[in-house]
Structures are given as C-alpha cells and as structure tokens.
C-alpha cells in the first residue's frame, strides 16, 4: 500500500500543473479576442479581391490566366497551415489526417504530392512522416506578417509556372466558433469555377492599363497571397480557441485527479491509524 508521504507529494505536483494549465487557459482566452478581431479585419480585403477575381472570370478577356487552366493533374502541392506551438488538443493532428487522406486519394489517381509547410508543427510532422517538402516557414507569431509568406507563395507559384506542379491545395482549420474548428482542404489552383452573377450573359471586357497579362499576373498572385494570409490568420484564431479548450479540460482533469488522490490519501492515513491502534490493543492484551 502506498504511504501517505508519496500520495501527498503526488497531490502537490498535480496541483502545480493545474495552476499552469489554468494560467494558460486564461492567456489563450485573452488571445482569442485579438486573433479573432484580426481575422475579421482582414475579411473585407479577401472578400473584395474575390469579387474582383470573379468579375474578371466572367469578363471575356483576351488573355486567359494560367490559374484558370485545367491541366492534366500529375503533381499536386499542399500548402499546410499549422500552429507553431503545441498544447492545443487535436487541432494540428486532425488537419494532418485530412491532408494525408487527400494525398492518398490523389496518389490512387496517379498524382504525386509535395508540401509547402507553414508552422513548426507541420514541419515536425512531415519530417517524421516523410514527403517532398518544397517550402517551409516557421514562427510567424501571434501577429503574422504578410511579408513572411511571400517567399513561400512565390516558390509554389513558380513551381506552378514551370509546370512542376499542376494543382495547389490549401489545408487549414476553419474557425466555426470557439468550441469548433473544422479542418479543411481547399483547392486554390486551378481556380474553382465561380457562380454566375448575371454578368456572363453579356459580352464585355475591361480596359487594362497597362497590359492585361501583367496586371492579371499581379492581381492573381495577390489573390493567392491574400487567401494564404487569411488561412494563417484564421488558423491562429483556431489555435487559441483549441488551446483554451484543451487547457480547460486539462485543468478539470487535474481537479478530478486531485480529488481521487485526496480520497486515497485519507484512506491510507486512516488505515495506518487503525493498524497502529489494533497493534496497541493487541500489545496490551498480550501483557
């Protein structure tokens, strides 16, 4: 049977862990608000640029951008957005599962996969699992800087331009609410067809200043960049929400554990007293 000193030590250690998880929960809770507002601030830009892109898609332009071109898929690239830090429950691993599943699906169709990774956790995971990693950015912090993503975006888009890859997917967590985050894989290139908003029926085109090719090239790159940036910001909000939840559960579990151990401690102590008493009584009777 365990002795009282051991049990007491265990209780003390769990209590200090509980203090840490409780503090981390509060930190995450305060960060959620910040990351969420950042997500909302970035939304108008992504919505507007999407609108513009959809207008361009419906125009009868003399120049068709390669991102619209449906090439025969031989190679795909996954941009995987993960967090830098752990302790956020199954957030990252659920996403990776989705990615692996999709990659396996494509593999069955004879499509090879490569990966562009954002975040420490994705880098570690794909290092362990293996896989062709073409680009990697880490430690974007709580306030991701769009400039840090330009390199990764450029690498992927250049590969696409050189016909090294035919499809690009972005894999990230969608923020549903504080309790739910939805991992998802979304196709970036070729750009998915956009629903008709009545503009296609008439034949029209923009005046381009300067050249259509140059302009669309820039605009499309910016569009992809904005989508990736938005995914990173959204993933950040997901991370904090998942972290808060995970830490809340950990704190509660620690509480349960402490209760159980306290019960055990009382049992052990009582057993010791009872034994001592019976020994004294037994000793007295013998004399």
């Amino acid at each position, binding site marked *: 049977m365990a002795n009282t000193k051991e049990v007491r030590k265990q209780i003390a250690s769990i209590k200090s862990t509980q203090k840490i998880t409780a503090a981390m929960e509060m930190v995450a809770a305060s960060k959620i608000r910040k990351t969420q507002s950042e997500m909302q601030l970035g939304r108008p830009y992504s919505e*507007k640029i999407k*609108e513009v892109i959809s207008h361009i898609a419906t125009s009868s332009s003399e120049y068709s951008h390669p991102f619209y071109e449906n090439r025969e898929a031989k190679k795909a690239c996954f941009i995987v957005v993960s967090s830098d830090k752990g302790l956020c429950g199954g957030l990252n691993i659920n996403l990776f599962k989705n990615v692996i599943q999709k990659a396996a699906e494509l593999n069955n169709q004879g499509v090879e996969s490569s990966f562009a990774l954002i975040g420490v956790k994705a880098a570690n995971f794909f290092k362990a699992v293996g896989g062709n990693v073409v680009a990697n950015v880490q430690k974007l912090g709580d306030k991701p800087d769009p400039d840090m993503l330009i390199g990764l975006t450029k690498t992927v888009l250049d590969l696409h331009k050189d016909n090294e890859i035919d499809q690009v997917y972005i894999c990230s967590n969608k923020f549903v609410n504080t309790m739910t985050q939805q991992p998802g894989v979304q196709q970036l290139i070729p750009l998915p067809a956009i629903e008709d908003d009545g503009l296609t029926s008439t034949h029209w085109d923009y005046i381009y200043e*300067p050249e*259509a090719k140059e302009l669309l090239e820039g605009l499309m790159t*910016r569009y992809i960049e904005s989508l990736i940036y938005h995914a990173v910001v959204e993933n950040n909000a997901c991370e904090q929400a998942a972290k808060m939840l995970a830490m809340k559960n950990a704190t509660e579990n620690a509480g349960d554990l402490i209760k159980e151990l306290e019960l055990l401690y009382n049992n052990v102590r009582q057993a010791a007293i009872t034994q001592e008493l019976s020994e004294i009584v037994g000793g007295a009777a013998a004399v």
Partner: protein
Amino acid sequence: MSTIKVSIVSSSEEIYSGEGTMVFATGSLGEIGIAPGHTPLLTGLAPGPVRVQNGDDEQTFFCSGGFIEIQPDIVTFLSDRAERADSMDEAEAIKAQEQAEKNMHDQESTLDYTKAAAQLAEAAARIKTIQKLRKNK
C-alpha cells in the same frame, strides 16, 4: 446626383466604404478621375492620395501600391496598405523618406535597389498627400 459605390480596403482592414460622386486616384499610368458610369477598367494603383468626393464633402486617403477595379457602379481599391490621410504624421513620413534615400545610396545595405526605390516612392507619395491635404484646409 448619381453616385458610385466606393470601397477602399487594405490587407489588414477596411478603410472606407460608401458612396461618392467623383473619385480621384493615382493609377500606374497616371492620375485618373472616376465618375459614376465609368467604363470597366482594371489598373495598377500607384502610391498616392485617393480623394473621394461626395457632393461638397471630400475625404482623402493614402494608398500604397495595389489595384483599382472599376465597374460602372462600383470602384474597388485593393491596396497593400491604406490609411486616412488626416491620421498620417508628416514627421514620420519625412523620416521614412530619409531612411529610404539612405538605403538607395548605401551600397552596403542588404536591401536591393528595387525595394529601396519602392520605399522611396511610397514615402514621397505619403509626404505629397499630407502637404496636399494641408493646402486644401
């Protein structure tokens, strides 16, 4: 009076969304004025002031590079960075210009020439915007 829907967004926030009777901006090929019913136009946006007139009311914004999309009833500014001109700080802008100039001439600097030139253009446009705004007051 007919109006055109104007929205100015930067990658980190929405700066302006509303109606305007006339909009002036700096396109990549020069100044343009946009009135309601403008023909569809897609052009680059050069660093500089964007003025939105709505009747007698006029507001000035500063946009760094980006794109302008014009539809007959909508004009959208997709700017990398944008801010309200009246919240800009001239001293700060001048400092940025000096820094950019230094970068241009500094051979040792790790910044490449094109980046430094872009910085300088932006800083100069910023100062121009502030000065223009002051003159109008």
